[in-house]
């Protein structure tokens, strides 16, 4: 069997293969640049809206449901947390007010906590162009 135009086809095939497998090897090449996200120990005496596993999987859906409930239906009824306390249906004054508290421990701060994981999974959350991250102001007051 003879391969005609091998000079073109073989390098062409190699380039094609490299492009197709790009997503599989780029991670290895850039391993140093990619942040990791470590699971963190639970702080004592303070809980999230749902148990941790559900929170991890469902917080985006939850936020969108609240958004529609508040903005479109005008229903601001506060929600119950796992430990029975209530919380305002609000990104800044609900989630972030608590996630900015010192007793939230390793779960504290938008920039070092929420964003760490979002970077790790490779998504950009645009809510913060409008919704305010209270953390910088809290730090300033100190």
């Amino acid at each position, binding site marked *: 069997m003879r391969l005609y135009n091998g000079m073109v086809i073989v390098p062409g095939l190699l380039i094609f293969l490299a492009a197709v497998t790009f997503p599989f090897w780029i991670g290895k090449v850039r391993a140093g640049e990619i942040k990791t996200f470590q699971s963190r120990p639970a702080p004592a005496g303070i809980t999230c809206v749902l148990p941790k596993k559900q929170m991890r999987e469902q917080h985006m859906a939850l936020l969108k449901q609240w958004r*529609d409930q508040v903005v479109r239906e*005008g229903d601001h009824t506060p929600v119950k947390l796992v430990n029975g306390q209530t919380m305002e249906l609000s990104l*800044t004054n609900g989630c972030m007010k608590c996630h900015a508290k010192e007793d939230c421990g390793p779960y504290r701060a938008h920039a070092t906590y929420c964003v760490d994981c979002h970077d790790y999974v490779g998504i950009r959350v645009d809510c913060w162009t409008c919704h305010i991250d209270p953390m910088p102001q809290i730090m300033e007051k100190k």
Partner: protein
Amino acid sequence: MMRLDRRDFLKCSAAGVAGLAAVRAVLPASVSPAAEGRSAAGSSQKPKRWAMVVDLQKCFEGKAKACVSACHQWHNVPEWPEERLEVKWIWEEKFSRLFPDQSFEHMPATLRERPVLALCNHCANPPCVRVCPTKATFKRPDGIVAMDMHRCIGCRFCIAACPYGARSFNWKNPREAENLKHQINLEYPTRARGVVEKCNFCAERLAAGLQPICVERAEDAALIFGDLNDPASKVTHVLAAGFAIRRKPSLETDPQVYYLISAMR
């Protein structure tokens, strides 16, 4: 390979759309049970009909001066030095410009030139809602013409449709305005570049049982706010016992901001 001519393609598409519609007709209950429960619970009460009365005389006496900055501070409205970038929820404008139909050459020039408060009229028949292609602006059952910033695509049809100039476009990122760099109210989000914004009758404060911030800050009840469906409310009383006008009523938008000329005795 199967070949589709244009007619077959259209038939297949139509069948596909019909099929999807049928599936959706069967499914909606299972998609969002929580949403259904809420709307059923909310409908048991008689809807409100929020409205505002601006007392012109008190306005002229400067008793509503604090309103504009109070509102803009509360809602994190950016202040731009250039007029073409201006964003406003409530503002002052000459009488003759707010009420062109009621102005004439021989009226007192002091009245014609006097600044009067203006804000979104929360029309019962809002043209902005009709033109919005994404339903980002919508009329709530309580009469508030609300904005859903999450849906606004910045097409500005609503700005063109509003006969009262009550809507502003964010040409620039509001967080870069000098006033918001220094002072920001955590209680309310800012907006982003590329969305339209306007007065929301302080829907977020009403939900917490408070009065709108402008009404709260006006002295001597220069602004009155309440529920027109409630015969005992102060707005109902004031309107029933005086003479009030509205901006451009001939456009039939049915504005819900009333300007009280005189309380009849």
